[in-house]
């Protein structure tokens, strides 16, 4: 179960390095005329995901979707509110960002597996299934830097699906695979649905509608809507067509 209540995550706007350094050395160096350059990537976000539920997260670029997944994965501590996660989280390195490009696919499976908390013996047990599922064939022993983005995505997805954690976070990783792989990924998604708790970020509305039982629409860090997939998606698509005034975050 994942319980998020009144969550707020604050970031420092990335300013010029020089002023960042001055900030770093202390308040007194900070120019008080300028805004402090903080912004809330997420604020007043409250929801609960029950065990076995699949929740879709939609919203425009920069609306806080990936940040939300990172908070649930424990990477960012909340600046406001609370997040409680009951169970082990399998993190998805979106589009293979967690891979070491110089290493082979096989080595990266071990590295990623150990990162998400598997032991070597556990990985030994699932590595053939992962390689099979990712359809990498002989490419599994060449450096990942030679992989296409689709191959990286397949490998990342395969690792997450085989890691057997209670909570699975998926950040737009299925988009890069080809049609055949996506069908296979869909089958796999159906297999784990109901069994695992899934949080799925995607810009593909049909994927969201197919798998999610609830959809959260994030807009500039706030929850714009939450509820029935069909309804929320409709609202989101309607809002995407016309300009909407920014919601008041404070």
């Amino acid at each position, binding site marked *: 179960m994942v319980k998020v209540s009144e969550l707020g995550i604050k970031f*420092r706007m990335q300013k010029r390095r020089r002023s960042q350094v001055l900030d770093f050395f202390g308040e007194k160096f900070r120019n008080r005329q300028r805004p402090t350059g903080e912004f809330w990537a997420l604020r007043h976000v409250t929801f609960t995901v029950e065990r076995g539920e699949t929740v879709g997260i939609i919203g425009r670029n920069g609306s806080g979707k990936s940040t939300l997944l990172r908070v649930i994965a424990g*990477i960012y*501590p909340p600046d406001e509110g609370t997040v409680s996660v009951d169970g082990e989280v399998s993190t998805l390195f*979106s589009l293979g960002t*967690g891979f070491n490009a110089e*290493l082979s696919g096989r080595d990266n499976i071990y590295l990623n597996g150990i*990162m*998400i908390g598997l032991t070597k013996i556990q990985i030994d047990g699932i590595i053939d299934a992962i390689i099979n599922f990712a359809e990498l064939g002989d490419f599994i022993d060449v450096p990942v830097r030679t992989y296409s983005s689709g191959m990286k995505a397949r490998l990342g997805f395969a690792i997450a699906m085989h890691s057997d954690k209670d909570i699975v976070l998926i950040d737009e990783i299925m988009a890069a695979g080809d049609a055949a792989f996506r069908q296979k990924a869909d089958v796999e998604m159906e297999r784990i649905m109901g069994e695992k708790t899934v949080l799925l970020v995607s810009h593909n509305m049909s994927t969201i509608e197919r798998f999610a039982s609830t959809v959260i629409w994030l807009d500039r860090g706030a929850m714009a809507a939450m509820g029935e997939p069909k309804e929320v998606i409709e609202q989101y698509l309607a809002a995407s067509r016309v300009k909407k005034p920014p919601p008041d975050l404070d």
Partner: protein
Amino acid sequence: MIEQLKNVWQRRELLWYIVKFQMKAEKKNKVLGFAWSFLDPLLLLLVYIVLVSYIFGRGGPQFPILLFIALLSWRWFTSSLVRSVTSVTSKVGLIQGVRFPLAILPLSGIIIGFFDWLFGFVILVPMLFIFEASFTVNILWLPVLLLVEFVGIVGACLIFAVVGTYLSDLSNILQFLIRLGFYLSPILYSVEDTVPERLTTLYMLVNPFAGLLESYKNVLIRGVPPSEYALVGVAVALVVFMVGLWYFSRNEYKLVKAI
């Protein structure tokens, strides 16, 4: 702070894999691959032997081994520092993908540096026989010296990892400091035949690394106990370790957001 150490210990398998795969990735594309682990220190040693023994005509008969042990230990320190400066910024993908104690990143660089020390030591051992080092029971001090150096390096690297994330200029400053430190430390020379006697105490107190380097030479080659000035190194190492641990713990979460 204790929490920090416990977290790292719990994820030691991850630390080990990062070290292993990092070393693999570094050597993989080279024709001579693993052989560079031995060639690197050997070539470096040759350059300095040519410089000191032939060009300046100094150093004495045991100079190659005195230089080598000091060079290896100095290199462990400096390569760890250089790696630590970019240890966080070079692993953005990992950090934003999964939760793990970030101290593992600078630590992995230190361990890789220690493997380089070990590879160099493998070459040093036969040289100790060739250049007739005095083997005594004092050699048992060697692991103690390594531990002191390790503790100090960990502290320094934890600090550099945080500062380097915010300030990439640190790499430039560091290059300069390393060069300076190299000439100010007893690596190309030994304290007793270069530093004037009335300045020895001052020299040893100002440079905490000096006592440690002389001690390496003492226990391994001269067959005498560590220099009493190594205690300066011990004190500095402990203080730097505590400060580094405290500073890193305080900034760990800020780092995640700053990258």
